Structure formats: C-alpha cells, structure tokens
C-alpha cells in the first residue's frame, strides 16, 4: 500500500478522514479549553497572592 492509496481510502476518503478530522478537532478543543481554564484559575490566584504580598 502506498501513501496515495492510503489517503484515497478506496474512494471513501471524504467519509473516513472527515470522521477522524471531526474527532480530532472536538477532542483537541476539549484539551485546549481545559488547559486554558486551569491557567486562568492559576493566574487569578497568583495575582491575588501578589496583591496580598505587596500589601504586607
């Protein structure tokens, strides 16, 4: 099997790669958004902590 054949998927390329593509996008988005949420939360508490420190 060569590369062109592999991507061609026996004529079902649109369906097979479409399915894998949608899955990749949705799951990556889940991971990226979770990461962003974690960073946002950390940033918020860090800023609050620095504010407290500068008050001391």
């Amino acid at each position: 099997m060569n590369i062109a054949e592999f991507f061609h998927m026996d004529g079902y390329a649109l369906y097979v790669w479409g399915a894998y593509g949608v899955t990749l996008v949705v799951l990556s988005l889940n991971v990226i958004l979770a990461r962003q949420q974690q960073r946002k939360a950390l940033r918020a508490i860090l800023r609050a902590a620095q504010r407290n420190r500068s008050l001391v």
Partner: protein
Amino acid sequence: MWLWIHKFGSPKYFYNVSGKILPWVAGATALLIVIGLYLGLFASPADYQQRETVRIMYIHVPSAWNSMFIYLLMAASAAIGLIWNIKLADIVAAVSAPIGASFTFITLVTGSLWGKPMWGTWWEWDARLTSELILLFLYLGYIALQSAFEDRRLAARASAVLAIVGAVNVPIIYYSVQWWNTLHQPQSLGVGMSTIHPSMLWPLLIMALGFKLLYVVILLMRTRAEVLERERNNAWVQELAQALVGKSVIGSANEYR
C-alpha cells in the same frame, strides 16, 4: 471506604493527588491512542462489506461507549452530590457534561459519515440513532440548567435531578438494537460472544481504553481548574499561590498569561 471517600472528597487532597497522577494518565492515553490509530488505520484490513469505512468504527464505537459511560458517571456523581452534599462530586458531574456532549456529538457525526456511504443516508429515525440524539439533548439541557442559576448549590441540585431522571435513556440506547429491529446493526461484542476478527477487535479495544483514559485526563484537568476557582479564598489555595509566587521560576503572574 468511607474514610477514603471523605479524604479524597476534600478538594485539597484531590488537587494534590490528581496533580501527581495526571502526567502518567496523560502519557498512557497518548500511547494507547497512537497504538490504536496505528492498528486501526494501517495494520488492520478493510472489511469485505464495509471496505475502508470500517475504520470509522474505531472512533465511532469507543465514542459511543464513552457517551453512555460518561452520562452514567455524571448522573451517579450528581446523585452523590445531591445526597451527601459532597462539593467535589458536584464539580465532577458539572465538568463531565461538556465532555460527554463532545463524545455524543462525535458519535453522531462519525455515525452519519459512515451511514451515508453504507446505508445510503446521513440520518434515519432509527431507535438507536434517535435515542443517542436524545442523549445529546440531555447533556445540553443539563449544561443549560447548570448555567441558569447564580447559586452553585441550587444549580447542582436542579441539574442533578435532570441527570438522574435522564439516566433512563442510557439502557434504552444500549438495548435499542435488540428491542427494535431497525436500521442500526446489533452489537457484535460481548463476553464470549464477539463476532469480529481479532485484527479488528484489538484496535477497537485499545482505542476504547484510550478514549476512556482521555476522558479521565480532561475530567481531571477541568476538575482541578474548577476546584481552584471555587476554593480560591480557602487557606490551602492561598498557600499554594504564595508558594508559586515564591518560586522564581514562575516570577510574575503576568508571565502566566
């Protein structure tokens, strides 16, 4: 057991332990998905009926299992939060909903992309397809209800009732192919009754395990973030923040942008 639940139910303990576990689970997830993709896309043969479209099954079926599994876990967690008033259980239920909705969406889209070339239609009001669509609406309804209340306790309670009542849909999805003889093919997997060839069974099972672990990874990440947000005024989060500020590696909070 009860002692353990209470210990693990404490947000601080959860945050520390999950932080240690997370990199390992993430590593195992990546490994399983890479192996599963290799087996599913390269090493396994095309099906004699479905031809190359059989490869869609390696993401469709694991997503469908996850969509039901996550719903049951969400409903159970919401019930625990409702009955024993455990904050962490409320958080687990709340953050599971968008993840479950994502897997349900993937199940419907990949199923549709398989159905068009194989059944000749994108969509059919078949019992299984319809009940899976209802599952998506249940997730979306749950998410909407969560955000409809300002008060978190109230939001958790109201949506927990919806999650628990909606759980009746999961066995309907699962048994739909036996109860109603419509378009969707019956199950071909089970203990001692599998009817698929090992070369296709392995990528399916490995992808299923990989997707399960991926759920755990996203769940832990989102739960940790949610715990930090909700507990930001508690002493342990303050200590954590002070420790991070103290470390020169982190420097200023602005660098964390």
